[in-house]
């Protein structure tokens, strides 16, 4: 009896979340995949069924590849894919360049100040993401705070155009995702053995050499985890480019949402999503690999 109930309990604990995620996470992707091959039509829902049924058997399959060929022939999609990859890559690099020394400084600080610093890094995350991005509009716009300060100091005479530029999007992404870069880097750097650096110094290595040959190679897993946590969501970012970005060059998240809401072309929106997922599958699997390692390495 106890054996049976233990088995039963395990199945319940395992079964409920698995079933939930299959229904609300896995099956939706299959539906997106299916609709990406449908034809658009003016109805609700605005897509044609893939299979034609008669007597309970599918008699015709209308597999429509035009949504995908559309993606490659229309310059809008290709350029917004490439632009999204570029924006995400540049922002990730900036995030790393700022986040790495910050994580390093926190990991090397006194244990008492360390917790305070970590709290200061995480604190903005608890306040609304949307409002923090919005704050940058007030800072960057032509009669905004930064321009007013610079003109007040006499450094510039004409307001700089900063809003609706690539620069503004980089700032927005670095700003919003910085904690996601710092935390994995910190938890890696904190575990480093300081005696290794002392050994390197004893052997005559200069600090920069010791950093490059000892600290940096050991922190590669943290760099990869942090970079993926920034890069993958940044590719599909919608809010930041909508509020801060250019209007002549859209990112792919915005294209998807415009296809869906403005054009009501659900099949093309689905094809955009599937293609984006295809680009991100390798980074996502890489992320899962590292996540698994960190979650199971504690043992």
């Amino acid at each position, binding site marked *: 009896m106890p054996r049976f109930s233990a088995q039963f309990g395990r199945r319940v604990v395992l079964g409920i979340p698995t079933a939930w995620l299959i229904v609300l996470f896995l099956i939706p992707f299959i539906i997106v995949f299916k609709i990406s091959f449908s034809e658009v039509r003016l109805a609700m829902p605005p897509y044609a069924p893939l299979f034609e049924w008669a007597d309970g058997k599918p008699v015709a399959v209308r597999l429509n590849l035009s949504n995908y060929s559309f993606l490659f022939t229309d310059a809008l999609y290709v350029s917004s894919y490439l632009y999204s990859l570029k924006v995400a890559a540049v922002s990730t690099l900036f995030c790393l360049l700022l986040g790495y020394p910050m994580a390093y400084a926190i990991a090397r600080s006194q244990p008492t100040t360390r917790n305070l610093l970590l709290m200061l890094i995480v604190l903005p995350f608890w306040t609304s993401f949307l409002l923090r991005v919005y704050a940058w509009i*007030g800072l960057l716009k032509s009669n905004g705070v930064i321009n007013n300060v610079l003109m007040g100091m006499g450094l510039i005479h004409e307001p700089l155009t900063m809003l609706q530029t690539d620069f503004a999007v980089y700032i927005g992404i670095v700003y919003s995702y910085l904690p996601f870069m710092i935390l994995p880097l910190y938890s890696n750097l904190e575990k480093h053995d300081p005696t290794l650096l002392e050994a390197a110094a004893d052997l005559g290595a200069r600090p920069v050499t010791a950093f490059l040959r000892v600290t940096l190679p050991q922190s590669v897993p943290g760099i990869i985890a942090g970079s993926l946590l920034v890069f993958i969501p940044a590719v599909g970012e919608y809010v930041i480019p909508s509020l801060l970005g250019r209007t002549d060059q859209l990112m792919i998240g915005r294209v998807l949402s415009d296809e869906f809401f403005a054009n009501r072309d659900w099949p093309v929106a689905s094809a955009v999503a599937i293609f984006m997922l295809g680009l991100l599958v390798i980074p996502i699997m890489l992320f899962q690999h590292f996540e698994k390692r960190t979650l199971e390495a504690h043992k």
Partner: protein
Amino acid sequence: MKSHGLFSRVALVFGLVFLYVPILSMVVFSFNNSRLVTVWDSANSPTLRWYQALISNEQILGAAWLSIKIAMIAASGAVVLGTLSGVALARFGAFRGRALLAGMTTAPLVMPEVITGLSLLLLFVALEQTIGWPKGGGAVTITLAHITFCMAYVTVVVQSRLVGFDESLEEAAMDLGARPVKVFFRITLPLIVPALVSGWLLAFTLSWDDLVISQFVAGPGSSTLPMVIFSKVRLGVSPDVNALATIMVMVVAAGITASSVWMRFQARRRERDMQLAAAANL
């Protein structure tokens, strides 16, 4: 060592300034009388007029109330489901379907929101066509969507708390004849309470904050607070949004201060108990 120690400290200070200046600017300008928001009207400022405008804005208040309700239900649901999957992943060893469950709980952490939103909406539409439920979008579909992406975060928090503890306590209880359900409620659950609290708060924040997924799955009728804010700020800066941001920052700051005071109090009490115990042993 000195030179790049200095460099990293400068970067830390710069980074913290970078993180806090935008938030401070919203707080400061929420007291500015001018409609231009970023041009300080020194004759009539500071003023509370934007706070008054906010309190009488029915649309924002209604949306905020809806967002709070959704976030509370979504966070609670996510904690239940995320605890189940976190316990399964941390304690069940190798089981069939482990890779599937692990994959489905880590992928949502990085999945672009537009993809999650689109796929969930298409699911809800397909469900409505086949079983007639849910009728249109609304608070129900938003809540279901939020539970799904929040539970991934709770899973990670619970799982990493559990792998930090070894299983010997649970095994000892089992050896003493406790049944699995009892072991869970008497041993495992108390161990992971801090993870459940932080998981709930994290899930609440994520749900409260979510714009993109809600926009996809919400029907025409229901607007959450981020949806209302987004449609306002798309048209440019708006002073009452600064007031709203300031209130949110104050609430978060008060919460963090209260929790750190409470934690310090707990730590001090534990210390005193230990001193008393040590004194009693003398």
